[in-house]
Structure formats: C-alpha cells, structure tokens
C-alpha cells in the first residue's frame, strides 16, 4: 500500500533544523541531464528527460517527461569540454517551452561546438 503524508514543515527530532515543504518542492531540480553530445548523442543519466535532440553542431534539445507549468523556469547549463582540453564552455539556454528546452554550445571563439559531456538542469514549477 502506498502511503501519503501531508505536511507543511519537516523538522529534525532535536528541533534544531527544519525546512518548509515549499523549499523542498520548489528547491528541487525538476529536470537534469548528463549528456554526451558528440557522434550519436546519448543520455548518460537524467531526471524527467524523455529524449534528447541533436539539432546540429553544438545545438541540442531536451524533451521533458512531465512538462513545466510555464516557460518561466530556470535552466542552467555547463559545457564540460570538447575533449581536446581547449576551452569549450560558452552556453546559452534558449527557446524554453513547457515541454522542452533548446540549448546551444559554442567555443570561446564563438564557433558552434559539440560537447563530449555536458550538464543541464532546471528549477521551476511542474504542471
């Protein structure tokens, strides 16, 4: 049998630390992905990501299993490298939709660039 507890605040038994459930729910990442963006792109691990799109060099999209309530969510991204040891870090998160988010990676010179590994996450309200 599945159990449900309805609660507003969690507090440790010592009473020295507590957190409002609003922080638990709002402070949790609603989607994240560890992703290989070279060759045939692949998801190494993820939460709430149904699939990833390869839309071109350095150009990717992530599709969510459960959609966000609006496009006003907070995405974060890091390019973990292009595998050559050179800087390949510049990222932009763009075209946010409730059901997906496109991101774009480019080198410090501004050239489109695939990533051997990248990290992406989003905070916000799910629908």
């Amino acid at each position, binding site marked *: *049998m*599945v*159990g449900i*507890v*309805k*609660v*507003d*605040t*969690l*507090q*440790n*038994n*010592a*009473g020295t630390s*507590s957190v409002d459930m609003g922080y*638990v*729910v*709002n402070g*949790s*990442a*609603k989607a*994240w*992905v*560890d992703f290989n963006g070279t060759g045939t792109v692949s998801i*190494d*691990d*993820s*939460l*709430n990501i149904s699939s990833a799109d390869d839309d071109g060099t350095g150009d990717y999209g992530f599709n969510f299993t*459960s*959609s966000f*309530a609006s496009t006003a969510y907070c995405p*974060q*991204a*890091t*390019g*973990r*490298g292009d595998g050559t*040891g*050179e*800087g*390949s*870090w*510049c990222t932009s998160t763009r075209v946010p939709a409730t059901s997906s988010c496109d991101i774009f990676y480019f080198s*410090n010179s501004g050239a489109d660039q695939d990533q051997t*590994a990248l*990290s*992406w*996450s989003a905070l916000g*309200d*799910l*629908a």
Partner: protein
Amino acid sequence: MSSKILVDELAGKTAAGNITVTSEGGSATMQLQQGLAKAWIKFTNKTSNIIHVSFNISSFDDDGTGDFGINFTNSMSSAEYSAPSSGGEDNRYTVTNFGTVLSSAMDGQTRQTTTNNVADADRSSIEILGDLA
C-alpha cells in the same frame, strides 16, 4: 492549520530510495530524491583556496593554476552525474573541462573566457545532481 513532522530521516515505504512528491500544478509527480542536489560548493581557488560554503564536500584540491578537484563525503553511485556550474563572480570566468570524473570526486578548470587561459577565480559554484551510492 499547518502541520509539522519531527523526523531525522525520510525513506520511502515501498522502496526506501523512492519518495514521490506532487508537482506544484498538481498534475505530475516526481521522485523527491532524484531532484535534490547531492552536493554543491562555492569556492575560490586563488592564492588561498577557500570553500565558502558547501554540502557533501569533504575537501578541495588545488591541482595548479585553474585546475581544481572536489571530493565528496558520500560518493555518487557512478561517474554519470550532472554538474551544472558557473564561473567566478567577476572578469568573465567559467568552470569547464571536467577532467577526471569519478563517483567520489571530480576535477575541473576555471578559465578566463576572453583570453582562453586557465586561471584561478573567485567564488565559482558547482552543483551535483544524480544518484548517491
């Protein structure tokens, strides 16, 4: 009336590692543990290496100019985790080029983007999302 639970540990009933929470909009559910950051750190790797604030970080390594390592108190279940990050607070720094990524630690670099040089930086941040062991 607000409600409060006094508790030191939360665990799922059916599976200890799976607690479901309902979305803000009420139409979706998600696994609580999966969405929680498993480690985070704000650090400076300049003349003095400083961990300004952190969670689940046991130590910080200075591996040379701009090269750093962070070590986890509790390891991740594998090296496949997400590590969104941001560079120092000024002068267009970034965090990138994660070199050795292990379940117990990871290496990275702080770089100055306008020069493409590895450089020490003030107050960079990394968040770790994924599964703990």
